[in-house]
């Protein structure tokens, strides 16, 4: 049967936001086509059952498209972003740490306004109901009662156990009198439908063949498909199309046949992440000036945030068995989350406690290149380090600097000849000071825990370390006017009322926690708006201001 190429809403990208958008709109009978350049991940593509499971993390399970070089990936130049193409997007391959932003994160313009920082056009309280809806949909594990944040509801299951690492580092935080709390994770601790509860296998960052981790291919997508969403894989979008001042759909290339197809839609929603969305908007230039779509203010691609970062590996004189349990997030400490200018910087950071992998990674240097010596000293080093390790990483809010941006690189193309994304990100001096200060606090925790035998740091990202955090945020941010942002408070682009941006691009600031929770909650809110105000949106020829936009 011939597929229809006409739809109510076209969603571009089938990752965590495209999945949520497709499911939530189709719940209410809205016809959705979703285009995804990647494919489905097969459960046997995960390395957990193979002897070389640790080595595979250095091959096909690399985070960076430039290192992975899969057919569905597109290359990047400049700073290497971490992202995954496919149904589920980067949630196929993520930490699943599920903290929430704090109220102050939505008011950073008021607090300091440095380097282009603006207030969000919405508050924590406006987004909170959507966090709750999203949490319930995907299934999370949480210990209720963290005194450092507004009260959040119970999760689908209890919090993951902390095991020896959790209790060891918790004792360190406790001795210092600092805040700590067991990490909330988008990980099932009891079965949910066909998804199995986590069995603490410890290899989270190569995805989860049990379905315990809430990747979008197994949370939102099965329901979206049951609703009749037309999900087209291997569909690489070349251009968002326009007609009479409105988005009219998109042209995509079928990567299997090379044929071009056009989908016509009344509303277009970009869900391609904070690199892919500005790339596609810039590729969708209509007037020959090269400035792309939704970019009359020159804001598309700007204010890129990653989180400023440092890894600190610590080893202790007792077994901690870090090969067990959820890998990236055991504890978070938010003692230093809020701005205290006496420290010499604005904003704040989280200290996150994580685990290690297995024996091979222990020999190869854990997270910081602390490689076991070869030869005579190898056995003693390995025996003293393996499974006696705890990771603390400094995850710091980076300022949304306007010159940190995504542009097109016409000298580098993907396999279809489309320009690559060039990612420029330089760490602001404020953020460097913050990470350096945070590294000292991480060491204090390890020392307070007692029995530390060795320590190695990754250095400070962008200074003497590796790249920044993995989180892609802010390149088409929502704001208060066309002068300071790309979208209004409902993710609606200022220039084109039926073109929405519902992914990490829309984040106004990045907080100092893993952002997928906030990104997906923001999308749930956007979907609610599109559903409730569908007819209003279709009648608009000009995007309303935040004050004039029809209410939710």
């Amino acid at each position, binding site marked *: 049967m011939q597929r229809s190429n006409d739809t109510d809403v076209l969603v571009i990208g089938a990752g965590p936001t495209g999945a949520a958008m497709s499911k939530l709109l189709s719940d209410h009978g809205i016809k959705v086509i979703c285009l995804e350049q990647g494919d489905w991940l097969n459960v046997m593509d995960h390395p957990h059952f193979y002897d070389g499971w640790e080595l595979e993390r250095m091959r096909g399970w690399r985070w960076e498209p430039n290192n992975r070089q899969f057919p569905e990936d597109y290359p990047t130049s400049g700073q290497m972003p971490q992202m995954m193409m496919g149904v589920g997007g980067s949630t196929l391959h993520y930490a699943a740490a599920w903290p929430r932003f704090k109220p102050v994160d939505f008011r950073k313009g008021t607090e300091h306004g440095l380097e282009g920082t603006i207030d969000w056009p919405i508050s924590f309280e406006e987004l909170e109901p959507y966090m709750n809806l999203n949490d319930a949909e995907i299934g999370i594990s949480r210990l209720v009662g963290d005194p450092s944040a507004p009260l959040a509801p119970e999760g689908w299951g209890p919090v993951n156990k902390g095991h020896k690492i959790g209790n060891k580092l918790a*004792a360190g935080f406790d001795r210092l009198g600092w805040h700590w709390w*067991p990490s909330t994770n988008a990980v099932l601790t009891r079965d949910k439908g066909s998804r199995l509860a986590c069995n603490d296998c410890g290899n989270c960052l190569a995805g989860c063949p049990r379905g315990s981790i809430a990747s979008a291919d197994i949370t939102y997508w099965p329901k979206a498909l049951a609703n009749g969403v037309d999900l087209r894989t291997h569909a690489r979008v070349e251009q968002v199309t326009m007609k009479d001042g409105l988005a009219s759909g998109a042209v995509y290339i079928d990567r299997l046949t090379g044929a071009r197809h056009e989908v016509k839609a009344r509303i277009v929603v970009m869900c391609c992440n904070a690199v892919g969305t500005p790339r596609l908007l810039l590729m969708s230039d209509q007037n020959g000036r090269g400035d792309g779509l939704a970019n009359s203010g020159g804001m598309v691609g700007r204010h890129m945030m990653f989180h400023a970062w440092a890894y600190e590996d610590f080893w202790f004189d007792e077994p901690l068995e870090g090969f067990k349990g959820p890998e990236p997030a055991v504890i978070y400490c938010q003692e230093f989350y809020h701005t205290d200018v006496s420290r010499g910087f604005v904003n704040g950071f989280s200290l996150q406690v994580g685990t290690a992998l297995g024996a091979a990674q222990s020999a190869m240097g854990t997270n910081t290149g602390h490689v076991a010596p070869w030869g005579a000293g190898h*056995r003693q080093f390995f025996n003293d380090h393996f499974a006696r390790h705890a990771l603390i990483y400094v995850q710091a809010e980076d300022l949304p600097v306007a010159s940190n941006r995504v542009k097109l690189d016409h000298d580098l193309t993907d396999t279809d000849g489309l320009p690559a994304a060039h990612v420029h990100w330089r760490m602001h001096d404020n953020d460097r000071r913050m990470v350096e200060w945070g590294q000292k606090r991480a060491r204090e925790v390890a020392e307070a825990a007692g029995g530390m035998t060795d320590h190695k740091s990754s250095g400070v990202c962008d200074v003497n370390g590796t790249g920044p955090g993995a989180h892609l945020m802010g390149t088409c941010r929502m704001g208060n006017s066309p002068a300071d942002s790309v979208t209004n408070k409902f993710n609606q682009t200022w220039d084109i009322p039926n073109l929405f941006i519902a992914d990490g691009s829309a984040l106004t600031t990045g907080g100092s926690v893993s952002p997928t929770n906030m990104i997906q909650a923001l999308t749930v809110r956007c979907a609610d708006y599109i559903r409730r105000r569908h007819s209003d949106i279709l009648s608009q020829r000009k995007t309303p201001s935040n004050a004039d936009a029809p209410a939710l």
Partner: protein
Amino acid sequence: MPTKADFTSKPAIGGYRPPISLTERQRRVLDAFADEIVPPGGGFPAPSEVGVAGFVARYVAPDGQPAKWFPFFAQAEFTGWLDGFDDRFLTAGADHRITVIQGIEARDPDWFGRIRNMVYSAYYSTPEVVKAINRELVAGRDYRLTPLPYGYSDRMEDWDQSLLARVKGSYTRTGDVVRVDLKGMV
């Protein structure tokens, strides 16, 4: 920087199939090399006893396939490297082999780092070595060869409730956010 021609395939889990074949001499060289990288002892076997060479060979890109994933070894390059070791490497004592390996490390640290890490990966991914870890290391008593299917839920300790009971924290509410005095930054 990769070019678009690189974005064409995915690596098979578990390495290339069929793997490259090493000659008997190439295998003996790789075994001798690996045995100096991770010397046996303390209850741990030698790499040559646990099939390290075969594991490494699985991850060498066969002729005609791009060596674009770790360890980035192409068959001709890798086997040529093994063929470059003279017979003395096989017949002389450990002191000579260590001197040769130190020379490789000094001349080409990138290559050396990759082959060293492949030896580490291979060695610590074998059932015999995992058994040695279980037997010899108190921190690894219940470590398994692969994360799944079993996992470790039956071996996990719960949170220390006495520590949790003492946690303190606070946050700034939306209406309480005020301008900070940037002059206060040191």
